[in-house]
């Protein structure tokens, strides 16, 4: 070997050694002492960083889990019971049972039900439209159809139906992270209890006007008549500001309120079709 090659090899080796030593010293000196369990818990979390747990990412949630005494009030909606169980095993805590939820759009203001009184031509953004005026219909509480919720969903669980002009939530993909709830400027979307077979019963209206104006604006509005409140055997329905609300955790899915509602504002989803009686009130939409 010529002396140049030898010299080169020696120089490069020395440089490499020097760099390694520097790196080692720096790594040791500036090392962040962390609880090793944080890494372990972060591994079992889904890694979506969606914020559904209420923290700024999976790692932040892992840190909180490690620091907390119990899992009360802490839940990863994406991973669900399985993930929380794994985390409980690592941290030697008791998992807390949390009811799974699903996002539900509480508005049925399709063009067929709710006549359009103006055409909106601004930026396609619900917050912009809401900031501008009441909306393209006479109902100033209903869905604006610009899709802020669809954009906010990180799990591809929503899409805008061009015919109904309402967002559709795909139950199988929805992880109840709450992003769509925060995105909606009118608080139309709610996280409700997920029942077996994705069955739902809810008041598909958020209109707080008195019965007359509400019904004039939309055929299937809640007019605040109170018949559902009276008929419910489980006291799951309350009335505030001319609007009925069904508590999904008290509701037993008996469907008595659906039959009582005179406007068809209460919807039953994913139930078998009832036997048709001649004087049946309007049967609600059943989603696929």
């Amino acid at each position: 070997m010529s002396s140049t090659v030898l010299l080169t090899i020696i120089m490069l080796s020395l440089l490499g050694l020097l760099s390694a030593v520097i790196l080692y010293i720096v790594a040791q000196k500036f090392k962040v002492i962390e609880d090793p369990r944080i890494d372990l818990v972060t591994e079992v979390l889904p890694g979506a960083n969606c914020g559904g747990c209420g923290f700024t990412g999976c790692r932040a949630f892992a840190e909180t889990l490690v620091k907390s005494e119990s899992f009360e009030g802490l839940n990863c909606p994406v991973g669900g019971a399985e993930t929380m169980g794994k985390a409980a095993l690592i941290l030697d805590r008791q998992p807390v049972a949390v009811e799974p939820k699903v996002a539900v759009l509480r508005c049925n203001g399709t063009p067929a039900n709710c006549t359009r009184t103006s055409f909106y031509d601004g930026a396609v953004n619900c917050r912009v439209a809401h900031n501008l005026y009441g909306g393209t219909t006479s109902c100033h509480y209903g869905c604006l159809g610009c899709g802020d919720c669809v954009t906010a969903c990180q799990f591809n669980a929503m899409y805008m139906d061009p015919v109904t002009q309402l967002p559709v939530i795909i139950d199988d993909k929805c992880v109840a992270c709450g992003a769509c709830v925060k995105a909606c400027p009118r608080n139309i979307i709610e996280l409700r209890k997920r029942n077996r077979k994705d069955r739902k019963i809810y008041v598909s209206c958020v209109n707080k006007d008195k019965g007359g104006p509400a019904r004039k604006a939309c055929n299937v509005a809640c007019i605040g008549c109170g018949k559902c409140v009276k008929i419910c055997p489980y006291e799951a329905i309350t009335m505030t500001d001319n609007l009925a609300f069904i508590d999904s955790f008290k509701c037993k899915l008996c469907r008595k309120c659906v039959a009582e509602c005179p406007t068809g504002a209460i919807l039953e989803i994913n139930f078998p079709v009832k036997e048709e009686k001649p004087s049946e009130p309007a049967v609600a939409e059943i989603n696929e």
Partner: protein
Amino acid sequence: MPVVVLPVPASVTIPVSQHIGAPAVPAVAKGDVVKTGQVIATAKGFVSANIHSSVSGKVSKIEPVIDTTGYKQMAVVIDVEGDEWIEGIDRSTDLVRKVTLSREQIVERCLQCGIVGLGGATFPTNIKMTVPAGKTCDMLIINGVECEPYLTSDHRLMIEKGEEVLTGASIIMKALGVTKAVIGIEANKPDAIINLAELSKNFDGITVQPLKVRYPQGGEKQLIKACTGREVPSGGLPLDVNIVVQNVGTAFAVYEAVQKNKPLIERVVTVTGKKVKEPGNFMVRIGTPVTKLIEAAGGMPDDTGKIVNGGPMMGKALALTDVPVTKGTSGIILFPEEESRREEIMPCIRCGKCSSACAMGLEPWLLSVAAEKTMYEKAEAEKITDCMECGACAYTCPARRPLLDYIRLGKATVMRKIRERNTK
């Protein structure tokens, strides 16, 4: 187009909030008989204004109705019977030149008569005419710019009621305690400039300043800079540079209030549009439905696609025509269908024309994206709160991007956050 006085309609709807500040409190009840000029709602709090009935008749209901802002507001609906005025109002049109009221009395009279800024902002004039402790004022500027295209109500006022406007200006000067006033008029209104320049020779301290035609010179900060070279500091008011600005319409209303004891119950509204059969300027009572105005202008053209309350740059599109004229209504423009729809949105080509168009030195391309992506700290740091919402950026954008839509949203959100931060 000379001003035409419209007849009193069959029913008026008068909102109790036609000004910046707290809505006025109704002072009448259903079934009450009211006369023209009578107070029907009183100012609540410091920043508020009185509301007067613009007709005589019976109050039929007091309930929320949709007004020109697109939202529901509490309003007093009056079924008209005759046109009986309350006593004390001088209804003659003779010029009353001599100002006999004192400084304090002038301010009090404007408060009683419910005078607000008629340039569009509707800020209570009595507050603007009072120089607060710690500040001084050395000049009054009268805004005769009317920079929005299509609108001509101020223009007509300056031609037909020049002396009244100038008397009004001198009244405001007395209230402020200043001896100098400048009337800024854009060069596209040469007849108004000549008329007022001639008439102002009889008024001490008032001069007319012709200005180049440039949007948005009608904004008070831009007008102050154009007339005097002074720049109002960011977040500040004209009084920070010792100036008060008032619109010509306001000057006229002040004249009527102080010299004729007449409250603000009617104003000039321009009704125009490419296909409008008989466009014109109409003196109309506050509360008249917009449908009546459109009727007077020859009826709604068949292919009307959009109706705008105000000018094409800053006005608000109406969803229905059954809304009342308020103190802030300066014009109604009817656009035909082919001019009503926005063009297709293209990607931003980063040409920077929006930034050169911005009169406040902001960067609309940056603010719009920050607002869209909810980056509110960045928007605040880039001074989104300075935006006047004049629309020059969106007008200039070759890609037709909805810049102002997002900036307006971002500005409202940032201001709400600032208020929340300050009240903590």
